[in-house]
């Protein structure tokens, strides 16, 4: 399995050495989706993180869109990671992910990630650090937003 060179220039993949890159590619499952096809659907149980290899996917949040707080976002850069939180916990997707064009993605299932992590694979440790840092920043941002909303008269 190969990916474009730009894939490895995006965090956290830019921290992977050659061994890490090979180990990640060996652990991930390749998925090809056609334009209009769902990568995952809102409400479905998340099975792992997704990395975009080629094509364009769109993420949408119907619930927040209905109150004007979210617009669909397109992702078209190789190496972009989606649903990283599902490496840590099984949960239901809150958002839709749909292919805007024919696309190729790599899925790293949670169970495989955890096995590789506890076996000491460096790529899994880098992914863990990235995911935990991201979650921490998002919790802080969410708390700040709640505090702002509650502090208004």
């Amino acid at each position: 399995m190969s990916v474009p060179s730009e894939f490895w220039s995006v965090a956290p993949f830019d921290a992977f050495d050659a061994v890490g890159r090979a180990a990640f590619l060996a652990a991930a499952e390749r998925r090809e989706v056609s334009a209009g096809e769902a990568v995952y659907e809102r409400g479905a149980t998340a099975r792992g993180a997704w990395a975009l290899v080629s094509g364009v996917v769109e993420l949408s949040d119907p619930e927040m869109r209905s109150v004007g707080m979210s617009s669909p976002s397109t992702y078209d850069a190789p190496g972009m990671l989606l649903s990283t939180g599902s490496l840590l916990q099984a949960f239901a997707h809150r958002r839709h992910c749909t292919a805007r064009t024919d696309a190729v993605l790599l899925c790293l299932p949670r169970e495989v990630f955890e096995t590789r992590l506890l076996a000491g694979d460096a790529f899994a440790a880098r992914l863990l650090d990235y995911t935990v840092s991201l979650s921490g920043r998002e919790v802080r941002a969410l708390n700040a937003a709640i505090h702002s909303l509650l502090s208004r008269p």
Partner: protein
Amino acid sequence: MLHVSLHTFFHEVPLFAGLDADELTELSREVVTRDWGAGERLFSQGDVSDGMYVIERGEVGVFACPGQGSRVMLAELGPGAVIGELSLVDGSPRSALVETVSMTSGYFLSRDAFDRLRFGGSLGATKIVLALGRTLEQRKRVTEERLRTLVGSNAEAAELHSRELRELFGRLLKS
């Protein structure tokens, strides 16, 4: 102040529940015991995050400091509470002020000590980060749900913060 067996105590802390006996021993070598009187500050909002605390006895208050000397209590935490655990993987400044409510004892694990474990190949350290990640992910989802409820129920306030909220929900789309 008498500290109970570290193994016994740490085994009951969810963040360390997945560690085996050897990993707990390894961890216990890196922590230092701390004792505080009532009203003593552990750290202030904006301080450099240099490590995490685990409360063994006593209570601490967690405060937001929105400015001009004011502070709002966010939580009161007691035995078994872990504070500042995100500092183990993230160098962001402390997001709150933490001060003891009563005489308190506990443990401190510095980021430097944790990094020695982590980069020395400690599986126990990896398990701690994994447990931390799971806790954060759960907290994120609960907090996001709370924010969604607030946005839905307080349209006027949401409109005032619509740009920041749209940016936040846009970032959350990826995760």
